[in-house]
């Protein structure tokens, strides 16, 4: 549905230029929900705005379906109003001088193409407002709505023309935590039921994983890795990706052969990358929730004796900091019985480790 090839966008600023998007390739399949995850300033919005036609790239090519909407080489650049994509802005951009009805109806009544008769407009707006659970608000002035309600108006406005592609630029980041989760689930539900192709941008890894059919981790204008959320979370391709997707305990060690690595915690059994021969250095990562804690001493492989040094109650889980030899490990578990100073055993299943070769 969307295919981006070798896209580069730079901004001229006093004293040089910023390459916000660098030589980037990306494909989004028809009907899928694609999430771009990356830290602030990595170029997510810029990429989205290039797709929308709001920003003029320097290099590359953008296709929507079969249609070429931007090409540096062929000197093609379709205006935003002709691209048939819809966008939900981070600031909502709900027009404060119009009512909810006028906002949502705008794409039907004011667009260059496909003007609709007013009876049809009313019906469609009604339908869209039901969809975003805002029926009855038609006559309200948009300026009086709450943040969450404005967000729903923006969503209804984006969906009403049944766009080929829906772009969302951190639509949830201005909402409070509870509302954010609710809206997230609603967006997922809505886009799935409508089957609209969606490109969604966020810097929140939980939101990204919850929404995505397929996601990409972006850093410094480039895509580091693309994959399904679960696969990326379990088996990240490199250390940066692992870190973006959640907290990780890292250990450094020397490969001892036989599927083991000598670390400051002791001998760890783990799956080794092909290239890692005995004597080479490796980083080992493990997520806090994959580490198990027991009170009894445990004899199995990959179990280590430790002492609880810190404890944080999170509601649905407890976060412990455990001292194991020279290193400290973060453990997330539903077991609540340990307190600071308790002696415990830390058990890490061998297959849960992610291991990267360290190049000198």
């Amino acid at each position, binding site marked *: 549905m969307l295919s981006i090839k070798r896209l580069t966008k730079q901004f001229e600023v006093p004293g040089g230029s910023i390459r916000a998007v660098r030589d980037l390739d990306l494909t989004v399949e028809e009907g899928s929900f694609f999430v771009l995850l990356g830290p602030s300033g990595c170029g997510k919005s810029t990429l989205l705005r290039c797709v*929308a*036609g*709001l920003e003029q790239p320097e290099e590359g090519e953008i296709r929507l379906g079969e249609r070429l909407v931007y090409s540096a080489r062929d000197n093609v650049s379709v*205006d*935003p*109003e*002709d*691209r*048939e*994509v*819809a*966008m939900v*802005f*981070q*600031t909502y*951009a709900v*027009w*404060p*001088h119009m009512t909810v009805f006028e906002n949502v109806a*705008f*794409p039907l009544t*004011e*667009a*260059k*193409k*496909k003007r609709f008769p007013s009876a049809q407009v009313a019906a469609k707006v009604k339908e869209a407002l039901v969809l975003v659970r805002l029926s009855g608000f038609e006559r309200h002035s948009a*300026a009086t709505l709450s943040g969450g309600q404005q967000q729903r108006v*923006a969503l209804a*406005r*984006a969906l009403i*023309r049944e766009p080929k592609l829906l772009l969302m630029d951190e639509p949830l980041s*201005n909402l409070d935590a509870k509302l954010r989760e609710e809206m997230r689930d609603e967006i997922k539900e809505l886009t799935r039921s409508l089957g609209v192709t969606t490109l969604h941008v966020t810097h929140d890894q939980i939101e990204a994983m919850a929404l995505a059919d397929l996601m990409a981790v972006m850093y410094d204008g480039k895509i580091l890795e693309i994959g399904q959320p679960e696969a990326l979370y379990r088996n990240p391709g490199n250390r940066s990706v692992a870190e973006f997707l959640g907290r990780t305990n890292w250990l450094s060690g020397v490969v001892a052969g036989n599927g083991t690595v000598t670390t400051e915690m002791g001998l760890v059994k783990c799956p080794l990358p092909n290239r890692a021969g005995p004597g080479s250095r490796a980083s080992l990562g493990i997520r806090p929730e994959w580490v198990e804690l027991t009170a009894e001493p445990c004899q199995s492989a990959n179990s280590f004796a430790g002492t609880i040094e810190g404890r944080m109650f999170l509601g649905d889980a407890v976060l412990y900091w455990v001292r194991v030899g020279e290193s400290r490990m973060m453990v997330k578990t539903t077991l609540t019985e340990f307190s600071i100073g308790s002696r415990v055993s830390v058990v890490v299943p061998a297959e849960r480790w992610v291991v990267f070769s360290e190049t000198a």
Partner: protein
Amino acid sequence: MASQGKVSRALFPVVVVALSGVVLILLPLLATGWISFMVGVPGYGTYTLANYLQVLLDPFGYRVLLNTLLFALGSTAMALVLAAPLAWSVARTDLPYRAAVGFLLGMVLVIPGFLQGMGWALMLSPNIGILNRALIELFGLEEAPVNIYSLSGMTFAQGLSLVPPAFFILSPVFLGMDSSFEEAAFLSGASKLRTFLRVNLPLAAPALVAAAIYVFVLSFALFEVPAVLGFPDRIFVFSTMLYFFVHIQQGTLPEYGLAAAYGSVVMIVSVLMATYYAKLVKQSRRFVTITGKGRRGKTLSLGKWRSLAFSVVSVYFILALVLPMLVLVYYSFLPFFKLPSLDAVSSFTFKNYVNVYTRQGARPLINTGILITLVPMAVVLVAMPISWLVVRSRLRGRFVIDNIAFLPLAVPRIVLSVSLLYIALISRNLIPRVLRRITAPLLKPALFGAWFWIMLLSFREVTMAVMLSSADSIVFPAQIWVLWNRALPHDAAAAAVMLAGIALILMLVTRRLIQRLSTPGGF
């Protein structure tokens, strides 16, 4: 509660300064009201309603009212029609030399209006206007084709010089507009024109109306251009009529009471408009969301319109600044009137400049210098606490203060026999807006722009006030006014050129200062 007590004690000096500021504003206004019920020699008068009766019955008053309305409406319309597109193109497009536009508008603003009026008179007066004379000679005409001494002439010249205030009100509005509003419209499939009509324009409308009202109230009270261009053919607007009542007639007593009665009526009308203005400003602020995450408006490419836009802007500056100043400079070097020619140039002389000096020495120059340095400072000192109270404190009655602070804008100054400090307060109505900006650190550039504006405006106001209040030419603007009224245009032009020079220097210095302060880390 205890902490609140502490806060209010700390507030005490602020409250004192603010209240004395309010008193300074209110006193002359109350005096005006009082005087309007008096007849006879000041101090020995009797109370009466006669003044108001005369206001109601005098057909001359109604004619002046009509003149004033036409003049104010016409010049406001002209100023807005020019300023709105100009502010928009400077804020949002790739118009060439955008940075210079702000500076040049500052120049137009800071050069006292009566110099512009004099420039136009020297160009287009039916008798001595250079352009008129040239046209007569070129085409062998019977009489002058254009008469600037007319209501439309006044309106035209005033309209040109009201562009800067309108521009400086509108430009932060356009700068602050979140461009995602229009981008959302594009992505809804709307064309550029439709987006402009349905989104940009309505969003800017409250600000446009507010600017219009502001300029209208201003033009209602403006004196300089109508005085220079209206007196020769006895075309009066309110402000010049009041001046006439108090000053001109020889052999009769000045009619303070009548002037005050007219003044009070105008005052009430202006205050009503000012209140409405304040309401609109609040509304426009709600529309123009300036959020941290919102993107600065993207610079729009004017494309093939670029050179056309640039030409229009150039024509404006030629009319508002270059031509009037050029004529003044030309006149200031001539010994007596000549049409521009090689012969005229060869007769150029510094005699007029020397005359200006020998008449009064350096005294007026020095006095003027002191005034224009001290007064803006006083304005800021008194106005800051007022606006701070209005914006930040929870003091009861702060809205009353806000409204009082607005009054001087609405009041024709001539009526009020006023102290300099009071006159300086006229520009204080700008400060509430400015202070709101101070509290939003996001808006640093806008803030400095506004400060700059206050400084320049007080310069202008002061020269104006002084021109009116001192009969003897102890300050420069007054000297120019006297020379001009004595039909010594060459000497007046020389003095005017010097005053414009001072204005230019002041502009450059202020700008320097602002630039230094507004660069990051400059604080």
